[in-house]
């Protein structure tokens, strides 16, 4: 063995292996014939095509996520809409500054949409009542000098109980006026539908819930999102789940819808 040169060694292997034959399994020809029969099929699934397809998918996803600018602008145009209608419906409150009213309405609107728990809804209306009371106090000094002489004259002829309802009903009327306003705001919100997610994400992303809402709103354009978070005193809560077949919404939102 040691005496064997490299050339001899190579020749030994070559001679032994040169005529070496092994019968392939029968399946091999079938595979060759199959490959020859449909070369097009192989091309369709070639890595190059898959790479190209994945690039297209990634670019499409990129463009999809680049879109948020427009919906926000559209939303801004919609906000101003409810304001003039509200003002028309109550000419009594002309003295309220023109700038203040739309702000208040959009705030209430947001309250109505964002607040979920029953307590919150109650709190929302309570806030409104307080405001209406405040408005009345502001208005009363204007109206009272005119009314007081009348009241005095009426006092003489009519009973005391008859007089009382007049200012009370005046007070009550304003909340009555306001109720349709709330209804209006809610109707608008219902009509807008698609812009609802934009509204929710608009106040800014402060919590994880907001972030999830924002992302979900971008992906899920349905009215009821796949998952929806909302804020209340207890923190961030899941207020809605929509799995297509299974829909769960917080009670408060069910009432509205």
């Amino acid at each position, binding site marked *: *063995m040691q*005496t*064997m040169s*490299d050339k001899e*060694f*190579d020749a*030994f*292997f*070559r001679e*032994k*292996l*040169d*005529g*070496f*034959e*092994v*019968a*392939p*399994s029968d399946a*091999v*020809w079938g*595979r*060759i*014939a199959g*490959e*020859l029969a449909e*070369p097009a099929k192989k091309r369709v699934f070639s890595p190059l095509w898959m790479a190209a397809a994945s690039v297209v998918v990634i670019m499409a996803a990129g463009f999809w996520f680049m879109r948020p600018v427009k919906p926000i602008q559209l939303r801004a145009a919609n906000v101003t809409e409810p304001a003039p209608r509200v003002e028309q419906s109550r000419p009594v409150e002309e003295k309220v500054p023109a700038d203040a009213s739309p702000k208040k309405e959009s705030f209430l609107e947001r309250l109505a949409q964002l607040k979920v728990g029953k307590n919150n809804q109650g709190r929302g209306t309570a806030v409104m009542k307080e405001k209406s009371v405040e408005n009345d106090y502001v208005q009363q000094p204007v109206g009272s000098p005119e009314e007081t002489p009348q009241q005095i004259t009426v006092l003489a002829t009519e009973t005391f109980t008859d007089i009382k309802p007049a200012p009370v009903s005046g007070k009550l009327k304003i909340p009555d006026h306001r109720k349709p306003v709330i209804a209006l705001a809610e109707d608008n919100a219902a009509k807008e539908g698609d812009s609802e997610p934009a509204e929710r994400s608009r106040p800014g992303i402060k919590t994880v819930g907001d972030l999830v809402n924002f992302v979900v709103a971008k992906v899920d354009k349905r009215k009821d999102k796949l998952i929806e978070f909302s804020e209340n005193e207890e923190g961030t809560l899941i207020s809605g789940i929509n799995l297509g077949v299974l829909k769960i919404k917080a009670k408060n939102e069910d009432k509205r819808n």
Partner: protein
Amino acid sequence: MNLSRKVTIDELLDGCRRSERRSQELLYKLLASKMLGVCMRYAKDRYEAEDILQMGFVKVFQKVKEFKEQGSFEGWIRRIMVNTAIEVYRKNQRMLNVVDIDEVYDMPQEMFDMNRLEAKDLLALIQHLSGGYRMVFNLYAIEGYSHKEIGEQLGITEGASKSQLSRARAVLKEKLIKMEGATHANYVG
């Protein structure tokens, strides 16, 4: 015998050029065993060898129109098989790390308890070489490639080809000695 076979292959060549399935199948049946023998030397096992055979024959039938009748058709097919084996090796090398030299020496001895060395025993030895050694030894010792050609084909330097060949020989010799001992030494001379 040899002449009649050559004529047959040339006849099949025309049929293959016309993409006739019958001629393709006959050519395959005629050469498959021989070509699988070639592929086996380059593959680590029979399954890989059959994969190379399959890929090689598909190439043969797809490129048969490019065959310029320089040299024999069989030799051309054989070169395609070898080239396909090189292709597969290079593809695998990109995915797997080259086996360490130490690992080659530590390889367990198995199934070498034959009194007489036969082709399949030598084949087993070659198949147990690490990829790079197997390629270089096959191409140089059996196919007759030059180190320059091997370097180009495998994407290594000529010097690397030389050193890998001598290491491959050393590993093979060591295994032969362990395997056969005195009996083999007498047989080889």
